């Protein structure tokens, strides 16, 4: 399956999309760029810690709502399109903490409407989230807990270093929310640095953290996480992130997103010199 087919077939306008990775690490940027090219609309994004991918999708007007516990450009600064969109009221925010996302996905996995959480009591979260409620333990202790709702993803989009043709995926390094997203989403689209044989997956540490039965489509896309990192292949492209922040988004989109092919994108983004810089 090609990148174009994967997005055209599996992502619909209005979907709740889970994005794997964290911050500047192992984000499925190739898939996000394709979502922008296909001009998908009205998506709700759910990601643990969002960065440039959330900012790009917001800048391209693909998003109507965001569920994330942090969206920023890390030590490089704030995410400009994210800020602008919320400050102008053009997208909705579902205020999340780490645990409301982690447990929301866990609730979906368990097929229960909510999970009890002992954090966030005393914060202003319940004031801005009318789907969160403080309740007393229904089993009779007097403990107060917060009921946080399940998060049922329509599609999970993930990038991994290794996958086989059946969709068994191995992640070197941190897994983050990727496995819970893959397990609970109705569809899971994966891009991978390398296609390997199933036998190879057996010998990689952790084997298939994402097993084939949870993967809907696999697309080979080397450097598919650029400008974010993909351990143990390459780190994030700091110069590209700086360039992103110094450019008008329309200009960025024209130059880097509407390029014709992935190869052409990598060329414009610095080519072999850039690749040698980011390779670990």
């Amino acid at each position, binding site marked *: 399956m090609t990148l174009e087919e994967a997005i055209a077939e599996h992502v619909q306008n209005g979907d709740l999309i889970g994005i794997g990775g*964290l911050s500047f690490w192992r984000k499925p940027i190739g898939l996000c760029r394709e979502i922008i090219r296909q001009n998908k609309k009205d998506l709700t994004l759910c990601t643990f810690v969002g960065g440039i991918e959330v900012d790009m999708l917001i800048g391209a007007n693909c998003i109507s709502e965001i569920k994330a516990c942090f969206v920023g450009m890390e030590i490089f600064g704030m995410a400009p399109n994210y800020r602008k969109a919320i400050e102008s009221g053009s997208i909705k925010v579902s205020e999340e*903490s780490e645990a409301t996302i982690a447990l929301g996905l866990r609730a979906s996995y368990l097929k229960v409407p909510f999970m009890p959480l002992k954090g966030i009591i005393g914060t*202003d979260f319940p004031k801005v989230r009318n789907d969160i409620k403080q309740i007393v333990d229904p089993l009779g202790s007097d403990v107060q807990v917060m009921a946080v709702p399940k998060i049922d993803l329509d599609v999970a989009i993930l990038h991994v270093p290794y996958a086989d043709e059946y969709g068994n995926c191995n992640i070197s*390094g941190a897994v983050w929310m990727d496995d819970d997203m893959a397990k609970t989403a109705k569809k899971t689209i994966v891009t991978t640095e390398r296609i390997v044989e199933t036998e190879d997956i057996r010998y990689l540490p952790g084997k298939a953290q994402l097993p084939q039965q949870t993967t809907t489509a696999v697309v080979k896309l080397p450097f598919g996480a650029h400008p974010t990192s993909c*351990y143990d292949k390459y780190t994030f492209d700091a110069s590209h992130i700086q360039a992103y922040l110094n450019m008008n988004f329309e200009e960025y989109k024209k130059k880097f997103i509407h390029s014709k092919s992935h190869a052409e994108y990598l060329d414009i983004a610095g080519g072999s010199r850039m690749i040698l810089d980011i390779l*670990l």
Partner: protein
Amino acid sequence: MTEIARDYTTDELMTVLMAREVKNDDVMIVGVATPMVWAAFTLAKVTHAPDAIYHYIMGNTFVIEPRQVSLLYLEMNTARAYRFQNSCECTLESLPSDKLTTIEFFRPAQVDQYGNTNNICIGDWKNPKIRLPGCAGIADFSGFYSRGSFLYTPRHDTRTFVPTEKLFFISGVGFPEGKPSMCGGIGPQCMITNLAYLNFDDKTRKMKIGTIHPGVDIETVKNSTGFELIVPEGVNETTPPTVEEIALLREKVDPLGIRKLEVLAGKEREDLLDQIIQKELAMVNRFPKSLSIS
């Protein structure tokens, strides 16, 4: 007799003070984009807390070995783990247990006299003047820690230190209305700033001056705080860093000065960022250097 350093910068003083809070049996939680905290924990690890364990939120991993602070190759540090988690486990395992004592530093955009914090927005939540990146796990964990939570900011001013009514959103719990949180933690323990070491009064739970940094006077600290700060009788001066602490920090723990990115602003910050990126790209071995524990 340990020799006191004469020449140090604010970021170095703050990093050393944060390092001194770490105990040898702590699990040290390193969050996202907080190089000063990472440098502090690593300094603690190579000085007085050799057995402390890193818990990298960005890697969802537990790591024993201390390595040099890095910007580009942070994943290399976190991936050298003895335990991997997914984010759900990471979130749940960060919650205090009877087995672990946890230390985490939060950097609030706003803080009130009770140590309640805001990292969500400036202005009304529905129509914010500034949307901040978010609080990540602060909402989950601030009320929980049995060792308490720890706060820091290099911007001690009346924009950061505000009375409760000017705190636009409570996204981290301190001592709400002067009481410990319902979640069982003992509440915020200290606030380390560029001007002073602040802590909390045992009775009223309001913020008070612990010590003031060398060269700073009490009036400056009070005037830089947007609520009435408790000033105890006979406030002492903060014990400055030692020559050894400063040398370790500059030469071993964070020779590229990545921690300074948390303190600097504008052009100065951009220049340092460029410099760090260029130096790290030039490294042949991209594993940040292992540090020995003394």
